[in-house]
């Protein structure tokens, strides 16, 4: 089986920078029904000490899930994406994402194993600005369901 502990620690090259747009943050906040003014009104966000609107807590996943394709597409891991289920998700924030942030993701494999025919993969994605300021670390555990 392809998901094995030997891959733990494998680190992938940094992602292409993602520029966080104010309207994208507003769109995301509206889609989850989050109506705190810091998510939509730059003046309210500035009053709270931010440069521009801030993103809701799960917004980083929008960015990291794209960056994680570099792991899922790693031919050594032989992941059948049609069998992947989202197991666990965790975020540890240094600060909220703000509109205007230009963010780079670095993905690391923290867990890779196969047990009872199912594959388990946990990635940590460290999200930082292009200037190197850490913003949030994101852990995603995926389960690759075995056949039958």
């Amino acid at each position, binding site marked *: 089986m392809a998901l094995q502990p030997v891959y733990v620690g494998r680190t992938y090259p940094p992602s292409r920078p993602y520029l966080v747009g104010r309207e994208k943050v507003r769109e995301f906040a509206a889609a989850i*029904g989050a109506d705190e003014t810091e998510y939509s009104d730059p003046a309210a966000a500035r009053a709270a000490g931010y440069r521009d609107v801030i993103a809701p807590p799960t917004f980083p996943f929008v960015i990291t899930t794209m960056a994680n394709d570099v792991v899922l597409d790693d031919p050594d891991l032989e992941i059948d994406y049609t069998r992947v289920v989202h*197991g666990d998700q965790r975020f540890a924030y240094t600060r909220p994402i703000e509109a205007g942030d230009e963010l780079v993701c670095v993905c690391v494999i923290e867990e890779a194993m196969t047990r009872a025919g199912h594959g388990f993969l946990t990635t940590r994605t460290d999200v930082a600005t292009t200037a190197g300021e850490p913003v949030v670390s994101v852990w995603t555990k995926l389960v690759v369901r075995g056949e039958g």
Partner: protein
Amino acid sequence: MSVPVLTAGQELAPHTYRITRDDLIRYAGASGDFNPIHWSERTAVKVGLPGVIAHGMFTMALAGRAVSAWAGAAAVLDYGVRFTKPVPVPDDDEGTEIVVSGKVREVSDGIAQIDLTVTCNGEKVLAQARARVRQAGLGD
């Protein structure tokens, strides 16, 4: 933004969120997750699901709204969940509902740990759902 101070053992007022099919379409667009199990009954049934289900990340986002309501939008330091059961969303005007309740496990150095319980039709859909939040006016 003024938010109440959290104390250990405190039960936090539950929040109920309704989820309909159009919410899932909107979330798909906003998040970029176009997996058809979240909008196509045919696909969902084919892979063995009871029908179209909500994105796990949508459920996590709604539970996150409750955390923000309890603690403030910018207060969250750490937030994690395990997805244990799907949230089926029927194709009608009512859709379904999730209920998010919370209890403050402990408060230390101005940081509160909240244990979340998230249910749909009385069944837990998330496990190990926890958030650490900074208390308002402390540690900023």
